[in-house]
């Protein structure tokens, strides 16, 4: 299932890439870096990239002239590390892949909705000992892996024709599964800035 979704996303990416007028990869790609965590217990850093897959501009006639509302569908990929600095029990690497729907108002305010069906969380544990019967052995590279899909919604603001092309603030709801005998919900904030390498 996961492989099919990845393949589908790749195919769509290639199709979109070949069909667009402004088909330069760099012109349609932005990079982002930001805070990732829940402030109270877990804090970390996130790096990511967004690729404009579909874009639609809607012109509206207003009294003061024309206004443009932009709606975009973006491919989204991200990787981040977060930890609880006061304990050694909540260290982990998060990575996910999905889609962002984004609406940009004429004044460049943005609404974001993310759907990340492909997510992976790797928990890193401190010194761990495994007990099997009467045998105790030290575990090498202890940790656990979880399937970790997520959704996020939030706001942001774009900057025009700048390397630093905007900021975003999202609330992210993720799941980790299988976690103990079920799933674990994980809430986090994402605040960061987007950059581009567009040709001027």
């Amino acid at each position, binding site marked *: 299932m996961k492989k099919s979704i990845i393949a589908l996303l790749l195919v769509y990416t290639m199709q979109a890439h070949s069909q667009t007028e402004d088909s330069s990869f760099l012109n349609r790609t932005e990079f982002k870096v930001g805070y990732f965590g829940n402030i109270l*217990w877990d804090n970390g850093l996130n790096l990511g990239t967004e690729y404009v897959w579909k874009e639609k501009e809607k012109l509206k006639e207003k009294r003061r002239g024309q206004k443009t509302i932009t709606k975009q569908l973006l491919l989204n990929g991200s990787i981040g590390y977060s930890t609880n600095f006061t304990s050694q029990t909540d260290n982990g690497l998060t990575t996910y892949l999905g889609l962002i729907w984004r609406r940009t108002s004429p004044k460049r305010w943005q609404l974001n909705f993310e759907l990340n069906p492909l997510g992976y969380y790797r928990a890193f544990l401190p010194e761990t000992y495994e007990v099997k019967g009467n045998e105790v052995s030290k575990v090498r590279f*202890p940790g656990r892996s979880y399937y970790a899909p997520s959704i996020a919604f939030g706001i942001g603001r774009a900057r025009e024709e700048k390397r630093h092309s905007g900021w975003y603030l999202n609330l992210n709801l993720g799941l980790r599964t299988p976690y103990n005998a079920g799933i674990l919900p994980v809430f986090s904030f994402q605040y960061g800035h987007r950059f581009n390498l567009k040709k001027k």
Partner: protein
Amino acid sequence: MKKIVIYKLKIVGIALLVLGIYSCSKEDINLSDLNETIFVRHKNADMPAYIYGNGSEKVFLIILHGGPGGHGLQYRSRSFRDEIEKNNAVVYFDQRGSGNSQGNYSEDEISIDIMAEDVLALAKVIKARYGKDSKLFLMGHSWGGTLGPAALIKDQGEFTAWIDVDGAHDPKGFYNKYKVVLKEMADTQIVLGNSIDYWQNVNDIVQNIGANYSTDDFFKLNRAALAGEEKLAEDNFIINGETDFEGNPQLNFITVKWNSNGMTNILGYKKGLWRDVSYTNRLSKITIPSLVLFGKHDIVVPAEYAQEAFDNLGSSDKEIFIFENSAHSPMSSEPDLFAIKVIEFINRLK
């Protein structure tokens, strides 16, 4: 020139060899001031043990938290942190499915039996890490007083002694005992003029509870008991417990709460902890030295269980102490006296 190069290569080789041996040797542990977190992996669960205090004599007090679904660090308040940890090391353990424990297992793998094996696995890990000559004292509070006997009945050879703190060795007896003790306490408080509306409401709850066990009714009684103890503290009937525990900044509240609800649901609702489980008749199998500590006004685990535990334990060396101004958590209500009793017991047996 060639000789100099060979000489320098020899020096580098010896240095690397020494470094290699050093890096492979067992790491240094500062036993006199332990402050570390290790995980125990057992039957698909990874469970943290937070170890603090003075381990210079290799004496470890392992705490089994309440709940089910509590967490180890909730006990790291004044009594343990400032007093008991100075005497010996304290192991704050998050049980399977609780606190910051992780893992991947089915609900079938959440049972008292497997959780008791987890406790024995922890004991093995402590001895593997700190030495086989380590002395382990097992303490269970509340639900930990169910799990402790379950572990000790399986294998008490790993432990020097057992400390039962307001322990629930007879969960299935709670349903009927709650009805009695809650009514008694309600009548007492109403006569004293304390929180009259609350205690009248408790009497109403007790009157409307069915004769036969139901988990929903059990939780009505349990909630009334927990809230009742808060009223007792507010009205200065017991000493108001301390809340300066250190768990907060270290634990993700959402994770801990989520896990707690999960464990209560599985063990309480699905597996009939409070309907079917009792260790009263098996306490006689525990023959290691034992100490029973209870708050006189405990209504969460009714205080009459103190004498029942003491009477039924099979130990020839056993003590009981009742904290006159405490309810379910004497370590919070009377922290200094609690620490004195625990330290006296440990030091006599270590």
